[in-house]
Structures are given as structure tokens and as C-alpha cells.
């Protein structure tokens, strides 16, 4: 990293106040202006929601959110207080973790196995099987609910007996096509010299997979984990179908949906609820972000 930074400095550096130096500086400034400008524009809808979540119900409906940013300030935490005080939010956050963690771990692991086979093993029908898997991305999930639920009931895989197992398995099935597609793409991009030199060293398939492929694919796996976790965490439909709306098993999304229905006209509470339910996914994203680094591959082929 530092060696690269030094190299870059040397390439870029031009004498101060020379035309080349000025144009480089201008390009830098332009870059920052564009980056910050785009990000700021992107934030506008979210800032609108955030501001509104601290406003009184009547104000939200009569004036624009930007008026709240000028005096007189009339902010309130009522919306948050109502959401937090209405019962079971703590327990449903726990339920959301109980659903989301296995529903992320299982498909990611299974997808890594399958993606490795699709990327680096030879077997008849490989490409067509892989394309069929991609095609399954297009199956509308709403169609699968009734047949899968019928099967679950007939084999007794219901929440009363098995807790969240049914919903983990369903999320695994639904998440796998994308997971395999993404990982296989990244595995395939690894240089083939890696595999050849490992084979010459007599490394077995398991060694190559666990010691070489997985460590080199950390950015791809981190992004997959983020997306799968997010999709499961924010899912309402699948949870309603396979878990149901009962209080002790409901995840956050179901609890919030019930909340806004039962309080009637409760949609303004959704402003606060939306921000509360965003916290966990954002923490996951920010904590996994350090795995998105350049240069994991650097040096792996040499020697």
C-alpha cells in the first residue's frame, strides 16, 4: 500500500505552479466537487425523511420538510417514542437476527461450494446447468409460496415444531441463484496460474478451496453477505408467509407493518420506524466495508 502510494506520488508530482501542476490541482478539485455533489444530491430524499421523522404529524402534512430546517425549530421525538414504546420491538429485533444470520450463512456457504465447481471443475452440462440457475432468478417468488407452504405443512415443517427452520430453508432456496452467479463470476476471474502451481505442489481440492480461493475472494463474499443479509432483514413477504404475524416470532418488518396498521394512519410513524430498522443493516455494511480493499490478489501469483 505505502509502496504503491509512493510510486503514485512520483508519477504525479510536477513542479509547483507549472501549467501541468495547475491542471492536476484543478482535476483534483473537480473530482471532489463531483463526488461530494453527487453524494449530496443522492442524500436529499433520505434527509427529507430524517427531518420529517422529528416533526409533528400536522406539520408534516401542511408544510414542506425544508421549512423545519429554519427557525423556529419545532422538533419532537414523539414519533420515535411511540414506535419504541409500543411493545415488542426489542424481541422482534432479536427474531430478525435469528432469521437473518442463518438465512445468510447457509446460502453463502452452499453457494461458495457450487460456485467453485461451476468456475473451476469440468463436468458435463456445466454451462447449461449454470444458465438454468441464472434463469431461476426470474421466477416470481409469489408463485412459489403456495406449493412450498403445502409441502411444509404436509411434512410438519411449521413454526410450532421447527421454529425458524422453514424460513431459513426458503431464503436459502430463493437466495442461491444470485449467490452462485455472483461468486462464480468472481472465482472465474482468479488467475489460472494459481491453480496450476497449487496442483504442482500437490494441494488437494479442499486445500485449494479453503486456502487459496476463499481468502482471495473476500471482497466478493463480503458483498454477497451484505446483500443476502439485507434482503432477509428487509423482507416482509416471505416472513409473513412462513413465519406469520404472531408477536413472539415476528421479525422487525412484520412488527412495524402491524404497528402502522393497528395505529391507523400510522404511516407518519413509519418515518421513525424506517430509520430504526435501517440501523442494523447499515452497521453490517459499514463493518464489512473494510474487506473491500485493493491488492488482495497482488503478489499471489509470484514465486
Amino acid at each position, binding site marked *: 500500500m505505502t509502496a504503491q502510494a509512493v510510486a503514485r506520488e512520483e508519477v504525479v508530482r510536477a513542479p509547483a505552479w507549472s501549467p501541468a501542476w495547475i491542471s492536476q490541482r484543478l482535476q483534483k478539485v473537480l473530482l471532489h466537487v463531483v463526488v461530494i455533489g453527487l453524494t449530496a444530491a443522492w442524500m436529499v430524499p433520505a434527509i427529507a425523511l430524517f427531518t420529517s421523522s422529528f416533526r409533528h404529524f400536522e406539520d408534516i402534512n401542511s408544510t414542506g420538510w425544508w421549512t423545519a430546517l429554519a427557525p423556529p425549530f419545532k422538533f419532537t421525538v414523539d414519533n420515535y417514542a411511540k414506535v419504541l414504546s409500543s411493545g415488542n420491538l426489542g424481541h422482534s429485533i432479536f427474531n430478525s437476527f435469528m432469521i437473518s444470520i442463518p438465512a445468510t450463512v447457509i446460502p453463502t456457504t452452499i453457494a461458495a461450494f457450487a460456485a467453485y465447481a461451476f468456475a473451476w471443475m469440468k463436468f458435463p452440462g456445466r454451462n447449461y446447468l449454470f444458465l438454468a440457475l441464472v434463469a431461476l432468478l426470474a421466477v416470481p417468488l409469489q408463485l412459489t409460496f403456495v406449493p412450498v407452504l403445502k*409441502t411444509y405443512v404436509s411434512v410438519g415443517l411449521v413454526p410450532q415444531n421447527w421454529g425458524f427452520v422453514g424460513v431459513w430453508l426458503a431464503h436459502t432456496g430463493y437466495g442461491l441463484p444470485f449467490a452462485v452467479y455472483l461468486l462464480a463470476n468472481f472465482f472465474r476471474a482468479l488467475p489460472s496460474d494459481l491453480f496450476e502451481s497449487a496442483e504442482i505442489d500437490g494441494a488437494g481440492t479442499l486445500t485449494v478451496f479453503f486456502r487459496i480461493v476463499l481468502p482471495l475472494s473476500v471482497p466478493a463474499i463480503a458483498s454477497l453477505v451484505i446483500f443476502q443479509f439485507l434482503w432477509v432483514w428487509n423482507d416482509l413477504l416471505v416472513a409473513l408467509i412462513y413465519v406469520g404475524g404472531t408477536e413472539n416470532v415476528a421479525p422487525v418488518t412484520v412488527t412495524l407493518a402491524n404497528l402502522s396498521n393497528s395505529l391507523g394512519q400510522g404511516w407518519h410513524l413509519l418515518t421513525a420506524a424506517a430509520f430504526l430498522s435501517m440501523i442494523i443493516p447499515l452497521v453490517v455494511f459499514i463493518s464489512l466495508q473494510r474487506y473491500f480493499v485493493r491488492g488482495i490478489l497482488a503478489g499471489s501469483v509470484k514465486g
Partner: protein
Amino acid sequence: MDLLIQDVPTLVFVVVAVPAVLAIYIVGTEYLVRLLPDKQRPRVRPWFWVGPALVFVTAFLVLPALGTVVTSFQDHDGNFIGLLNYQRQLGDFPTGGAWIAIRNNVYWLILYTLFVLFFGLILAVLFDRVRYESIVKSFIFMPMAISSVALAVIWGFMYSYQPADAPQTGTLNFIVVNVFHQAPKTWLSDPTVNNFALIAAAIWGITGFAMVILSAALKGIPGELLEAARVDGAGELTIFRRVIFPLMMPTVVVVGTTLVIFALKAFDVVYVMTAGNFQTDVLANRMYKLLYQSDNPGGASAVAIILLIAVVPVLIFNLRQFRAVEARR
């Protein structure tokens, strides 16, 4: 709180046992494969590695999809009626049956896919060059962390409409009235703009997805390669066109394919913001309405099959892409 304590064993079980079982599976099957003679091993091994994935997608996606094919040829009571369901959906071109939904899906397909790819690529490349990359990335990513219901609330604030003489509460109409001095628009019910309004909300929601994956691919390009190009005096635009973009192409194809399929399956935003009214219907929403509101499983299945068939060209494109990558190895 008691409930939480009761659940702790389950949580431990989940976090420890699930990965353990999966690891035992792959190590155990490798042990079994080793028992085979040398020549047999490469032929048998792949099936153990893809096996679990195939079992899951067969149970949860393939079998229901096959059931859908059968249902699409049946009436409500399960009698075979040939292509009648398809004829009802595709009969009255250009405004009857599913045609409004198909037209809107074409809008989604083109605008959503291209804009998300464009923004995702631009943001990934630009952010790669600034030190505060992780902060700006988190901001762009934030909409991904929001559920579709919350997304509808947010864009409700953007698109809300008040009559011209009242103060505007929607951000967009405020700009339209006070900056451009035009009459406020009913963004969600005016058929000339509402599809684009919905697509814009969806683009905002998903761009973080494209940015993160493309950025992961960008990080996979060895730094030495870019340095070498810079030392040779290549401009930044040339480096992007000649070095970065070609190396990222397979990932652009993956993200593009996924986005095309997301566009075909577009449901959440339409369902929560307009429920498909005012000529904003899309295929997935139409299917949902036929299935759960009109109690017409045959029609819903026919719409789903139309949606599946629309993916075939994308698959052919992907097949070509694999072959090209394979040939370069």
C-alpha cells in the same frame, strides 16, 4: 426478556451448528471421493459440490416453476384449456390484457438497467480515487438498507402534490413551482410521468447494489497494472476505457443481467406506491393481482411464464460471455 433467554440455545445452535454441518459435509464427501480410483474422482467430485445448491433450487424454485407451466394451461377448476390463458393476456394489443404491463416493463428494462449501471460504474470509479471513499459509499448505499415500504414513504415526500394555490410540501413540486415557475405535477397519477417517477425511485434504491459489486471488481484489478499504464503516460480516461472497463466486463455483465431480471420482476415499488393504477402496472404486479385478488391462477401463471420467456435472450448473451472468458484462459 424471559423469551430472549429461552431463545439463546437456539441462537448458539444456529451460529455454531449450521456452519459446522456444512463444513462436515464438504470434508466428508471429499473423504468419500478419495476412496474412489484416481480416474473417477474428477467425474464424481463436482456433483458433491453443486449438489446442495441443486437440491435447494429444485425444491424451492424449479418444482414450483414447473407447476406454474402446468397451471398456465388450465382454467380455475384444473381443466386443460390450451393457450386460452395466454390468448387472454396477449390478445388485445396494444392496450388490453397484459400489454400495458409489458410496455411498462420495457420502460423499466431500458431506463432502470442503463441508469443503475451508469451510476454504479461512475460512482465506483470516482469514489475509488478519494480518501473518504468508505464514507461516501455508505451514503450511496444507505437506500439499500431501507425496506420497500420505507422507500415508498420517502418518495411520497418527494412526489407529494398540493393544488397550485397551496404551499407545496413535495420536494419536486416545490422546485417545479419556485424554480421553474410551472404548475405542480401529480407525479404518481399523471400517466405521462408516473412510470418514470416510479423508475427513478427504484433506481435510487438499487444503485448502491451495483456500486458495491462493481467496486469489489474494481478492487480486484491489480494496482501495479494501473500504475504501469500511468507510468507509460496514459490519460485517466484512456486507462478507464482500455484497462479498467475490459477487466470489469464480466462483472458488468453479471450486474447488468441481474438488473435486467430485477427490472422484469419489478414489484415492490409499484405495489406500494401506485398498486399498478394510472397505467403503471407491471408484469409481476399483474401476476400478483391475478393470483391473490382475482383468484385466477391460470392467468397469473401465464403472466409468470411470459416473464420467464423474456429472460431467454439475456441467457444467450451470458452463454456467449462465458465462452469468451473460457477461450481466454
